[in-house]
């Protein structure tokens, strides 16, 4: 959040506000989780999962160039919301919403791969790592792929197991936030001159 404001001029376009909003909501949800009685934690987790998915999916939707990927995202989102809503209503007794979170992680991994595929197949884009969005997507990819197994098993954890294994989530959450910070701090036009321009300085 600090980095977003520090480099506000670089981040005010291209949908970075979505990630900023996510950072705020994530901080609020974490704080609420520690201060609200455990019986409500399922609702907090479930609601946060839906919001988290919505924000990341929106960011990726805004980043996609191809219509087909946008349609896939929309279709999968409908599926996700149905399952998440069903889970929220039907499984109130559980402590963690494993199914929607795992589904969310899988879908976001898939969308991230779509995004990277678009980036490498677009001839106008060179050196993907000079793009601010690339680092956001890498953060998502690393976070969700590393925590996928944790989320799949989370519903079955005992309190002790939860404490032990939740370190994985915390660790990759930090990595994700660091990568977000890198992205926010990157210059907007850090893209160097296209290497092919050097050959024909006057023609490009």
């Amino acid at each position, binding site marked *: 959040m600090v980095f977003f404001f520090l480099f506000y001029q670089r981040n005010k376009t291209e949908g970075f506000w979505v990630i900023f909003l996510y950072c705020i909501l994530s901080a609020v949800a974490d704080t609420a989780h520690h201060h609200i009685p455990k019986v409500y934690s399922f609702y907090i987790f479930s609601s946060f999962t839906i919001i988290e998915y919505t924000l990341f999916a929106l960011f990726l939707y805004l980043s996609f160039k191809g219509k087909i990927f946008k349609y896939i995202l929309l279709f999968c989102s409908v599926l996700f919301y149905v399952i998440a809503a069903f889970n929220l209503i039907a499984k109130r007794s559980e402590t963690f919403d494993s*199914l929607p979170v795992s589904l969310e992680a899988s879908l976001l991994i898939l969308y991230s791969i779509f995004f990277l595929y678009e980036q490498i197949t677009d001839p106008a884009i060179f050196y993907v790592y000079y793009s601010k969005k690339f680092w956001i997507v890498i953060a998502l990819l690393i976070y969700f792929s590393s925590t996928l197994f944790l989320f799949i098993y989370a519903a079955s954890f005992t309190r002790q197991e939860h404490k032990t294994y939740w370190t994985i989530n915390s660790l990759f959450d930090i990595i994700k936030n660091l990568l977000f910070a890198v992205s926010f701090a990157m210059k907007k036009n850090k893209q160097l001159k296209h290497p092919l321009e050097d050959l024909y300085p006057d023609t490009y």
Partner: protein
Amino acid sequence: MILLQITNPGSNVSLVLYFGTIGMLALTIGLIVFIIFHQRKVIRYQLRLQRMEQDQQKLLLNASIRLQEEERQRIAADLHDDAGPLLATARLYLNENLVNLDKTTQLQSIYNAKSIIDDTIQLIRNISHSLMPPTLKNFGLESAVNDLFQKISGSGSMNASSRFHDYRERLQSENELIIFRVIQELVNNILKHSNASFIHLTQNTSGTKFFIRLHHDGRGITQNDFNKLNKSNVGLGLKNIQSRLKVLHGKIFFEKDMSQTYYKVTIELVNEEEEKLQEQE
């Protein structure tokens, strides 16, 4: 969906969890590294291609500069070696008029000077015509090519004929000049190197495409030879053809006839004006 939520785990949860997490992380990092390296590789490959194209452009440019220089040298030599002495001689005759007061000698020297000046005019006209054929300028490509082929045939060294099947509307004059120069260069090559007994030129159109085909029965080159010569330092004329056709976005194909007896050169051009018209329709 069961796969996405384990509610009754076995005893080896930690093992699956750690290996699963490490495996997924390794896959992700592998994917990122692959993307970065793949992209760098693609860029390197594109750079290499661009460099090769740039080298080719340099060769073509050098060829066209050398040809221009050769042309200038030829014109300079023509003017210096032929027109210069002729005019100097005419000046001598006229000078004689100032010294010699005899009427008959004066008349004779004026007549000589006049005839030398006529020769000089003819010479300069020839130089001018070689730079820009008047037939091409006034009557178009078809007439200029027919004229050129008649001259070749008239020399008796070779049987040359041309036929334009569909040339009702003239191309732009600068395009006609480029095509004419290409034909001249090709014919010149055939005369110099092929030892052919005939050349036949045909013109055709197909849709928005404009074709000129040259047939001859001498020794010719194929597309492979053309490409090789284009990349080497020899074959100045061929490079010149290539660079001229590049201006018109045209293509040239060198091949042997189906019967393996004749060599065939095809020039393919796109009539951009007609293409635009068709697109509008």
